[in-house]
C-alpha cells in the first residue's frame, strides 16, 4: 500500500531497479536503489529522521528548540523538512563550496546557514559546528558523523530492503561520507550473507578540499567501522561525471554526481565478476537525483571542462 499517515512516514522502501543495458551480462547484473524517491530527494532522509526520533526519545528536544548540524547539504535539507514539521529551529553549518541549489533549498525549508571556509571542506564545517555547540550549550547537535541512529537507520531500513528485494545480492556499493549507509546496511547484509562484498566509493575532490594545516586536522567519522567493508575506492570528479552522464544516457536515470562515483566502483566490481565467470548481483545506491547540481554544468558540454568546473566543489 502506498498510503501514509504523514510525509515522514513515507521515508524509505525505495525502488530497486535493474539496469538492463549497463549490466555486463544476464548473469552479472547491476541494480540501482533509488534513494532520490525519499521525501526531500535523498538518502539522508533516513538518517535525519532516525536521529531526530532518537533525540526525541531521549528527551533532548522541546518545542521551539534549536538544532545544529554540520552538513554539506543533503542531511541539512532532510533535517530542515522534519524540523519545519515539528516546529524546531535549524542551524546548518555548510562549507561555502557547495552548490547554489543546496543553499536555496535549505532556505526554502526555513533553515539558517552558517558558512564554513572552503579550504578543508567538511572538516571545517565539523570544527565550526563543534565551536558553535560549545558557545550555545542549549542547542542540540545531532552530529551525523558520530550518531549511532544514523547507522541504525540503514541497519533497520536500507539493508533489509536490499536483502528482501534481491536475496541473491553478492555486492553492495555505496558512497562514503558519514559512513552511515555502508556501515549500517553493510553490517546487516554481511550478518545475513557473510560473503557479500561491501564496497565504498569515496569522492576525490580538488586540492582545496584537502587543504588542512596539518595531518592531525584529518578526520575519520566516529561511526566508521572498516571491518564491515571489503574494499574502498577513491573516485575523481572526471570519472564520477562520466558515469553520471552514462547512467542518464544509457538507462535514463538522472542522478547526482556522487552516484556517478558509486557507479564507477560498481561497474569495476561487476566487470571483475564477469571476468571470472561467477554470477553476481551488484546493488548500488543512488543517493540523490541531479536537480541540485544543474547549476554546476555537470550535465552538459565537454566532460573535461565540466570536471574542471567542479574542481574545488564538494559534489558528494
Amino acid at each position, binding site marked *: 500500500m502506498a498510503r501514509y499517515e504523514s510525509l515522514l512516514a513515507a521515508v524509505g522502501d525505495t525502488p530497486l531497479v535493474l539496469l538492463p543495458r549497463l549490466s555486463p551480462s544476464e548473469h552479472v547484473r547491476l541494480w540501482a536503489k533509488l534513494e532520490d524517491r525519499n521525501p526531500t530527494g535523498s538518502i539522508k532522509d533516513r538518517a535525519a529522521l532516525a536521529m531526530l526520533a532518537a533525540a526525541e526519545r531521549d528527551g533532548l528536544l522541546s518545542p521551539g528548540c534549536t538544532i545544529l548540524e554540520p552538513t554539506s547539504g543533503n*542531511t541539512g535539507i532532510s533535517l530542515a523538512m522534519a524540523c519545519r514539521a515539528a516546529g524546531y529551529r535549524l542551524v546548518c553549518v555548510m562549507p561555502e563550496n557547495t552548490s547554489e541549489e543546496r543553499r536555496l533549498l535549505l532556505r526554502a525549508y526555513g533553515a539558517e546557514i552558517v558558512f564554513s571556509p572552503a579550504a*578543508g571542506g567538511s572538516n571545517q564545517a565539523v570544527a565550526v559546528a563543534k565551536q558553535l555547540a560549545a558557545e550555545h550549550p542549549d542547542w542540540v547537535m545531532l552530529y551525523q558523523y558520530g550518531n549511532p541512529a544514523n547507522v541504525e537507520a540503514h541497519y533497520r531500513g536500507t539493508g533489509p530492503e536490499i536483502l528482501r528485494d534481491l536475496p541473491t545480492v553478492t555486492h553492495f556499493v555505496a*558512497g562514503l561520507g*558519514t559512513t*552511515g549507509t555502508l556501515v549500517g546496511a553493510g553490517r546487516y547484509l554481511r550478518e545475513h550473507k557473510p560473503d557479500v562484498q561491501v564496497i565504498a566509493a569515496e569522492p576525490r575532490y580538488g*586540492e582545496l578540499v584537502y*587543504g588542512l594545516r596539518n595531518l592531525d586536522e584529518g578526520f575519520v567519522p566516529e561511526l566508521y567501522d572498516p571491518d564491515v*567493508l571489503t574494499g574502498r*575506492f*577513491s573516485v575523481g570528479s572526471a570519472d564520477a561525471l562520466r558515469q553520471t552522464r552514462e547512467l542518464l544516457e544509457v538507462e535514463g536515470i538522472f542522478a547526482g554526481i556522487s552516484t556517478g562515483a558509486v557507479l564507477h566502483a560498481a561497474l569495476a566490481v561487476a566487470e571483475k565478476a564477469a571476468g571470472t565467470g561467477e554470477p553476481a548481483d551488484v546493488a548500488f545506491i543512488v543517493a540523490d537525483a541531479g536537480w541540485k547540481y544543474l547549476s554546476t554544468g555537470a550535465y552538459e558540454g565537454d566532460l573535461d571542462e565540466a570536471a574542471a568546473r567542479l574542481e574545488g566543489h564538494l559534489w558528494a
Partner: protein
Amino acid sequence: MAVTVSIPTILRTHTGGAKSVEASGSTLAELIDNLEHEHNGLKARLITNGSLHRFVNVYVNDEDVRFTGGLDAPVSDGDTVTILPAVAGG
C-alpha cells in the same frame, strides 16, 4: 618505468613543492623507503608505530591499501599511488 606517487599539498614541503614524484618498490613499504631516500622526512609523516598514520589514506590505482594488504600491498611499475589526508564527507 616507475611508480608515480601523487603528493598532497600538506606534504609537499618534503618534495620541494612537487605535486607528483616517481619511486620504485614491489610493496608500499618498499616504495615509502625508496621515497624517503629522495624526500627526507616523508616516511615519518606517513607511518607511525609501524602502520599508516590514522589520518593518511593511500590508494594504489584508486584502491585503498588498507583493504589490499596495508604496507604490504603490492605495487608495480606503471601504477599510480595517491596519498591524501583523511577528510569528512556527508
